[in-house]
């Protein structure tokens, strides 16, 4: 697979354990006590979105559902809230994945933003419907930051696949 369709570089196939590891690290980042700071992105949503664009056959709605369930329990939220949002996100990104990679990174980030925003808005709507408390507009800053993080996320998460097939000890990368 190529990083983008305009690139001539061919990537190595992704390793399943790396996908798993990156999702676990995203969960850990979500569990950090930084969640009450304004503008902290939902790391799981970002990484899930990334992998369901890149590897929609491996990371699909099943993963999204399980991660959503874990997030619900960890958050003390109502069960099903994150599940709904993540499953929707995984479906939409998987259906966009064929198109998204034709664009340069900046335009990819621009297209990911409404999806992440929708993911937050769905959760907000679900909780407001059942009498939750409105958390303030800073709730929507997170997705904007997350879509800006699309650049570093792409770089970091594709890094293992950039390695050459034949290792050269004199030229490690």
């Amino acid at each position, binding site marked *: 697979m190529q990083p983008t369709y305009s690139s001539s570089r061919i990537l190595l196939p992704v390793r399943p354990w790396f996908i798993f590891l990156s999702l676990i690290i995203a969960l850990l980042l979500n569990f950090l006590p930084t969640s009450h700071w304004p503008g902290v992105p939902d790391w799981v949503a970002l990484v899930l979105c990334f992998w369901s664009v890149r590897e929609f056959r491996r990371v699909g709605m099943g993963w999204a559902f399980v991660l959503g369930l874990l997030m619900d329990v960890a958050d*003390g939220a109502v069960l099903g809230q994150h599940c709904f949002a993540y499953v929707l996100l995984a479906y939409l990104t998987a259906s966009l994945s064929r198109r998204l990679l034709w664009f340069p990174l900046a335009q990819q980030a621009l297209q990911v933003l409404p999806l992440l925003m929708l993911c937050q808005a769905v959760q907000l709507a679900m909780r407001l419907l059942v009498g939750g408390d409105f958390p303030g507009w800073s709730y929507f800053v997170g997705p904007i930051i997350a879509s800006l993080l699309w650049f570093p996320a792409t770089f970091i998460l594709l890094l293992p696949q950039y390695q050459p097939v034949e290792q050269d000890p004199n030229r490690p990368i």
Partner: protein
Amino acid sequence: MAGIDHAPPPFFKRGPAPLALLTLYIAISVAIFVVDLRMHSLDLVRQSISLVVDPVQRVAQTPGSLVDYAANYLQGRQVLEAENKALKHAQLNTAPDLQRLAQMEAENERLRKLLTVKEREKAQGQVAQILYTARDPFSRRVIVDKGQQSGIVAGQPAIDEAGVVGQVTRVFPFSAEITLITDKDQAVPVQIVRSGQRSVVFGLGNGQLELRYMPANADVQVGDVLVTSGLDSIYLPGFPVAKVINIERDSAYSFARIFCAPIAGVENFGELMVLSPRAAMPPAPPEAKSRAGDGGSDKGSRIKKRRVAKAN
């Protein structure tokens, strides 16, 4: 046209169609959302998932607590000395009251026995450490480090050194979730100390509380202290809850809007005391079988009557 009704070869199979999967998962999500919210019958599922998530969450909390620890360690000796002095001073201030408390309690008990009044319940409990605030931005809850292993059950009230903080709402094997009194629509039955009037105070979700259903001409003043009334079977009477900070009386509405601020350090981190559940209340007396006039069947009028009785 032979072969058109053949199934595709197995290496093209990719499972169910995405839209079908989406519908299935969304249906499950909505189902567990409703069941969890309305029937609370998924607690076992939540507890078993929390067994997996809880260790990870504690690992994620360690960097923050290490920084706290380091900050404490590096705190100057002078600061600690000043704090120590202040604490000693505070202890000395409360000493006269505390020393006489035992004698007063004994006296109170004796007098209550003389009057054949039921004895006062004693407050007992266990100290718990707040681990972190729950991440859910739609509610106000904290997680403490005592759970089923320490015998915590849902419903127990939690207090700090100043007043009521909240109530245990969910219990996990090694932790428990406390909903703060400032959480939206979290209710605490209270009594105004000055006038003795009873009411219920509700959380607003923005850090304040509201005393609802008080008539516009009710005897409430800014600065009034609200304490638990003990009329439920959860909170013992007499714990400070909130202080009235603002009253809006508008003659267009039948109720005054009374805003209060919590007395306890509700948003602070630290230790709190989870009080033991209260002794079982005596069973409510049976309702009178027949009432003059309405025959006791009209629910609406009965509620109206009860409200009138409350207002008086």
